[in-house]
């Protein structure tokens, strides 16, 4: 499968901006106002969703503005689907 760079979400409060870029490897960058408090948990969630989509090799950046898990999941899923649709 091939992917293009894609984004989903916003930088508004309670939201998050997910940016995906093609890569030969998985990498994860997490920015948030809470000093990375949820970085580990979010990375585990990202890995699980990438696994489910069969796309383990992507560069994933998340700017978290205090998003709930439901929001993070929804934004990542849509970013992935947008990345795929651009193929």
């Amino acid at each position: 499968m091939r992917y293009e760079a894609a984004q989903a979400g916003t930088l508004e409060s309670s939201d998050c901006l997910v940016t995906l870029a093609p890569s030969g490897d998985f990498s994860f960058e997490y920015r948030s106002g809470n000093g990375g408090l949820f970085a580990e948990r979010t990375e585990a969630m990202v890995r699980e969703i990438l696994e489910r989509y069969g796309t383990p090799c992507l560069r994933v950046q998340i700017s978290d503005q205090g998003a709930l898990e439901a929001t993070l999941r929804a934004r990542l899923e849509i970013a992935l689907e947008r990345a795929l649709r651009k193929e």
Partner: protein
Amino acid sequence: MLYMPGNSPGMLQHAPVFGADSVLLDLEDAVAVAEKDAARRLVAHFLRVLDFGRVEVTVRINGADTPYFETDLEEIIPARPSAVRLPKCQSPGDVLRADALMTAIEERHGMEAGTVGIHAMLETARGLEHAFEIATASPRVKALTLGGQDLTADLGVQKTREGWELFYARGRVVMAARAAGIAAFDTVWTDVDDPEGLAAEAKQIVEMGFTGKAAIHPSQIPVIHEAFRPDPREFRRAWRIVTAAEEAERQGKGVLLVDGRMVDGPIVVRAQRLLDLGVLYGMKGDETA
């Protein structure tokens, strides 16, 4: 009934706390074309994990004339909202098409057929002319709802503060909904900075027989509630009428007097309806009778 933009997690996560009886999570007008996919997914996730408490949740999907209609149903129905709001219903066929798609989706996801209801939006002259047929097209239809903005555009008239241009349409919606035994919901008041105008309109639509009204801002909710909350004196009188009617029935009497006036069947029915509404607002007749 508070409209909330479907792509705004900050608002969605607070949906249960605004004091509305129901929330309308909007995938249609409040969402830009480029964000339809994101809003749909966000709403589906929130429906699955957020505890909305006693707040009824309806999702306004995109119309059957858009490329988003079927995908909206595919993602939203399995997340089990109370109902989906179908924009621009023009004929019973629009309801039947949605009904068939919803039944197939429910079946695929192991849901009982008819789990998710339909609120049919009437916002064209043609839709209004088919109001009763739309209301009775499927048992899924739980409400008719008037879309005032689109209707005035379709009629080629301006939406005025007084709202006479919608008077016939409102009467038609109430009559059809009542005949079909379902709810009738009124359109939005778009000027958030004019609560007096909203209060006057809300009072009018309550008097016309609507059972709910949509809001576009949390500040409108108490104004709408105030219009629906029965007057305490009328509520106490209704309580006396219903109590007297129950006593008369026990004693086998056909005619009764309350406050020196003769009371008959329709008055008792009206009183019971007002009493039910008051009880919803936490009013108690026996304490003040």
